[in-house]
């Protein structure tokens, strides 16, 4: 692959990221400077959606992709497992999704959602749509057949990075338009604090098992000599370093951890069950 060779030969490691918010530029300009200070040359390439970023990584236009969990699953599918998860945030590990219902609904178990309406986030959101729907289906409530699914498609293509879809789902629940809403565990206190949900009006009907979120993905053939300085730099990044403190807060982490691939099975099952990439 010509492009791949080109990327491998160039000294600069090209890292892809999806521009889901203007702060992405601030973050990556800062990271670029940080790596420069360590003698590691990186550059960033922004994409408007994860599919374009995965294509770029697979074609060798970029060396490393800062991938959503769904982009990771697609990368693995397209390469028959030929990708490597290099690193992830501490906050990317062991997330759960809550299925929330109104306290007065009388609903007590997932099976009770049969014939009901379930609000989810964007159609490509792992945390607010695919993973909880997979849990519903496993419990015998097939989305679209056993229950009606209402999508809240904010920024489709960005895999649910924007919290807006989940917020709209929570609003639909609070307004009584739907019977249940799926949202990331960390967003429940956020939505209560900001007033989207009234405290004490909802209960957690079910919770998914823990799963993992984003990771830096590289093709397996990318030599370690190319990506290791980048990974070392990430793992050495300190929350107490004023050069990167604000960037880490913006990116939502306290420290970078080595990549792990054990937390994506629920999403893999969902992608398969719902023929997401069929």
């Amino acid at each position, binding site marked *: 692959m010509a492009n791949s060779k080109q990327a491998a030969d160039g000294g600069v490691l090209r890292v892809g990221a999806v521009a889901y918010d203007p702060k992405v530029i601030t973050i990556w300009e800062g990271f670029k400077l940080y790596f420069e200070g360590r003698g590691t040359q990186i550059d960033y390439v922004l994409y408007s959606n994860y599919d374009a970023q995965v294509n770029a990584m697979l074609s060798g236009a970029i060396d490393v992709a800062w991938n959503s969990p769904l982009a990771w699953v697609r990368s693995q599918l397209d390469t028959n497992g030929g990708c490597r998860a290099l690193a992830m945030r501490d906050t990317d590990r062991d997330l759960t999704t809550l299925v929330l219902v109104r306290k007065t609904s009388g609903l007590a178990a997932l099976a009770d959602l049969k014939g009901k309406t379930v609000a989810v986030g964007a159609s490509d959101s792992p945390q607010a749509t695919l993973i909880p729907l997979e849990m519903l289906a496993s419990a015998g409530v097939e989305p679209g057949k056993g229950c009606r699914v209402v999508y809240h498609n904010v920024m489709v293509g960005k895999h649910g990075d924007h919290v807006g879809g989940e917020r709209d789902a929570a609003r639909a629940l609070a307004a009584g338009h739907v019977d249940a809403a799926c949202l990331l565990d960390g967003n429940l206190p956020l939505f209560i604090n900001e007033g989207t949900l009234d405290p004490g009006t909802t209960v957690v009907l079910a919770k998914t098992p823990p799963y993992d979120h984003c990771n830096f993905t590289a093709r397996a053939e990318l030599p370690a000599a190319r990506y290791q300085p980048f990974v070392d730099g990430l793992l050495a990044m300190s929350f107490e370093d004023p050069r990167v403190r604000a960037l880490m807060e913006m990116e939502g982490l306290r*420290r970078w951890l080595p990549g792990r691939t054990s937390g994506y099975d629920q999403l893999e099952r969902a992608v398969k069950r719902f023929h997401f990439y069929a």
Partner: protein
Amino acid sequence: MPESVPNAFVELEDLAFHEGVPVLLRRALGPLKPSELLEVHGDASEFVENLQAWCRKEGHAYRGAGKAQGRHLIEKGTVDRSVTRPGPEVKEAAKPAWGLAPRGAAVELGGPEFSFPLRQKREVWGQELHTIYSRAASNQWAAAKDIPWSELPKLPAEVEGAVCQVMTFLTENEFAALYVPARFLARIHPHYREVSAVLAMQVADEARHAEAFTRRAEEGGVGLGTTAASSQLSLQTLIEEPDFSTAVFLLCVMGEGTFLSLLKFLEERAPDPVTACLMRLAHRDEGRHVAFGMEHIRYVTILEPARRATFAAAVERRSQMLASVSGLSPYVHDALVVYCGGGVQPAQIRRGASFVADLHREMDRARRERLQALGFSGQDAEALSAYHTKNFM
């Protein structure tokens, strides 16, 4: 695997996360070391879901349910909000990362570095700063309530005109004395807050003087006089001085020091009680500014005696830049003569001119005395005093 024994316990009862659970969690986790365990008990709905999400966001690990119902274990994370404690004493150098933290406070690490260029004690410090500041704070007066404006008499036109011209000159100089400390204030590291506080009071004093002097000019019905080009040139060389200590020397020791003689003279020769009161109050303020200048320059020259030579050079340099200024502006000189002579009759002029000549001698004497108090030799003091701008400030 050894049994996990919690290092601390916190009872949350039925408190919900949105009701403040994180407050108690942070208080309980604060004293623990990384990897130590906190056991919590809570009964609120969705407690465990919120607890898990909170732990992940804050960098702690949720370690599952405890032994009893409603109990959970949290392992404190390795990433802590570490702080440094620079201590309450005044340091020789202040670190940029201490930023706006008050001296004596703990400073969280990871904050931004501030670019306060003046961050060494030797660059800004002096003795007695607290005393100078306290006096300034307790001696604040207000033009609206502390000046007997109703006692202003109708003066002869030529005397009123002279008062207004003097007020114009004073106000120009007060602006310069306001802008010089103001320019440096934002450059001084907050660690040396006593210096910033003294300078801030100077700025406030000068703003008040400018207001009061302008009002005096307007109150008599004549209004402000003329600002001379030579005065402006002299003041420009003062406010553009880039070095803090040199600027303090030129402004507070040489300029405001000279003004002490001027204000005392203007009080004693004032044609009316309002002007006399204004001069007295302004003199009291300027005395503190001179005290700061003396303390700072004394501190600097004790540490670095060679700085005296640079201060002397600055006075000479300024004198060369002002070579075109042959003397005090005629507007000001003539006004002073009429002000203290009491009118424009030849006898009054003779009397006034004599007083003004005395004033120049007194200014020179006081300048030499202050310079010698700062360790300049009698010969150097005499030369420097002679080089000082003819426009007083």
